[in-house]
């Protein structure tokens, strides 16, 4: 057990990194080492906090202090004032634009107050490059539960009952999609993750892949179990180098732990994941075009039917889901059927996220 008294979490998402959060992280580490505090203060990089407009973000725990727009040269002041003397650095705290009050606890900020984080549950909280932190937040429990306690049918049933709908935008019921593929005959089937996020201003897939890549890997394996496929493919745009890097690290760690590969959890289910890079064609986010692109053909949509669940990648039955859809799966399985039904109104006409502000519904 670590004897750390304090954790300093620095955002390592693309938004904050482009405002020099990586040199901020280095500076914080150096300051901590110079004062021989490395045994007491843990400085680490996390995924995106979501508040990129005020990045780089630094969060200090357990004081629950949220610093915004921190520059690399502020590292010294944070360590000297906050970490050593226990005095908060007021000028770096978030200022409520209406009342000009400084807010330390991010949960009291207007931006975070109304949020319940399901898909983003671990973003900005864990180190995305450390599988242990994901596991200690119930990571891979849902996969373990599905493989050892549930049948593919009952797992699909839970997903159907949850009312989860495709988060890529079309909102097709996810459980139903899985059922279609599972009923398609054939020994060889594929699970595809659509990470070709290209809508202007939409970064939810990137946030998840950069902040919590294991949640996607775990769910793809669950989907593989439900549809009896052994091969997963992530189609990710090459413009997301950081997401690709973190995903690679995560896949490597999952293989090392035996959570991907042969006979997962001692069952006879085997599953592995590979990456495919998109060359930046917006249309390749459409599932038939995406499949053609993965096959090495021209990335152009074709008319459905046949649906990918019947004839997809290499004309084999294929389940294509969006990144965020996958990130929602583990909590659904762990929270028992219906656990999250509340957040998905039955008659929703608009998908949860859309790039247009006035139409986006984060939570009802």
């Amino acid at each position, binding site marked *: 057990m670590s004897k750390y008294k304090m954790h300093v979490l620095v955002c390592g998402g693309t938004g904050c990194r482009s405002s020099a959060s990586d040199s901020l992280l280095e500076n914080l580490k150096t300051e901590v080492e110079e004062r021989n505090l490395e045994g007491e203060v843990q400085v680490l990089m996390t995924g995106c906090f979501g508040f990129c407009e005020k990045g780089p973000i630094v969060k200090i725990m357990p004081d629950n202090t949220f610093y915004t727009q921190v520059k690399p040269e502020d590292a010294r002041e944070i360590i000297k004032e906050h970490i050593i003397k*226990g005095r908060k650095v007021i000028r770096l705290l978030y200022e409520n634009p209406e009342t000009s009050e400084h807010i330390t606890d991010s*949960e009291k900020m207007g931006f975070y107050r109304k949020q319940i984080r399901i898909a983003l549950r671990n973003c900005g909280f*864990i180190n995305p490059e450390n599988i242990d*932190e994901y596991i200690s937040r119930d990571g891979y429990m849902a996969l*373990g539960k599905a493989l050892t306690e549930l049948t593919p049918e009952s797992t699909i049933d839970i997903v159907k009952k949850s009312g989860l709908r495709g988060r890529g935008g079309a909102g097709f019921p996810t459980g139903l999609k899985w059922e279609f593929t599972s009923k398609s005959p054939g020994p060889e089937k594929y699970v595809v993750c659509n990470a070709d996020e290209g809508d202007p201003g939409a970064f939810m897939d990137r946030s998840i892949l950069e902040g919590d890549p294991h949640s996607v890997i775990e769910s793809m394996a669950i989907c593989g179990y439900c549809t009896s496929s052994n091969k997963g493919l992530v189609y990710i745009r090459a413009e997301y180098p950081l997401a690709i890097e973190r995903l690679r690290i995560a896949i490597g760690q999952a293989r090392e732990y035996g959570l991907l590969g042969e006979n997962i959890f001692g069952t006879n289910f085997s599953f592995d994941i590979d990456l495919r890079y998109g060359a930046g064609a917006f249309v390749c986010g459409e599932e038939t075009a995406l499949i053609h692109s993965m096959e090495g053909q021209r990335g152009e949509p074709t008319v459905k039917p046949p649906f990918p669940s019947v004839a997809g990648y290499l004309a084999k039955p294929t389940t294509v889901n969006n990144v965020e859809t996958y990130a929602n799966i583990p909590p659904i399985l762990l929270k028992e059927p219906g656990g999250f039904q509340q957040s998905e109104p039955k008659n929703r006409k608009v998908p949860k996220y859309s790039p247009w502000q006035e139409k986006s519904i984060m939570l009802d």
Partner: protein
Amino acid sequence: MTKVKSLADLKKLKDNLQGQLKLREKGLDAGSHVQIKVAMATCGIASGAKGVMDFLIEELDKRNIEAVVTQTGCMGYCYAEPTLEVTKPGEEPIVFGYVDIRKADEIIEKYIKNGELIDGIIPQNYETIQNK
């Protein structure tokens, strides 16, 4: 490296790792735990607040008491350092002065565990701008 061969393996691994993130999880939910603020300004450090803080962190963990121990600046009671402020969930904060390790032990055993008040409480005799 450990390979996860069964669900039991994963659960065991998770239990072993729990400590890693406890600090962060407690921070999010500080209101439902005992909160202890140790005054760690120059006056506090000079009187040994650091040792008391380390003692509290270790002992509370050993005695299975869920508490968030953080440090704060000078509270103005420099004559009575080391000082700490203890807030039990739903109760008013209480400030203790002259807290050495023996006193810290007494605070854990008597006040935190049983709610008994002990010697050395500094009555709050000021108002802050927030209370006005």
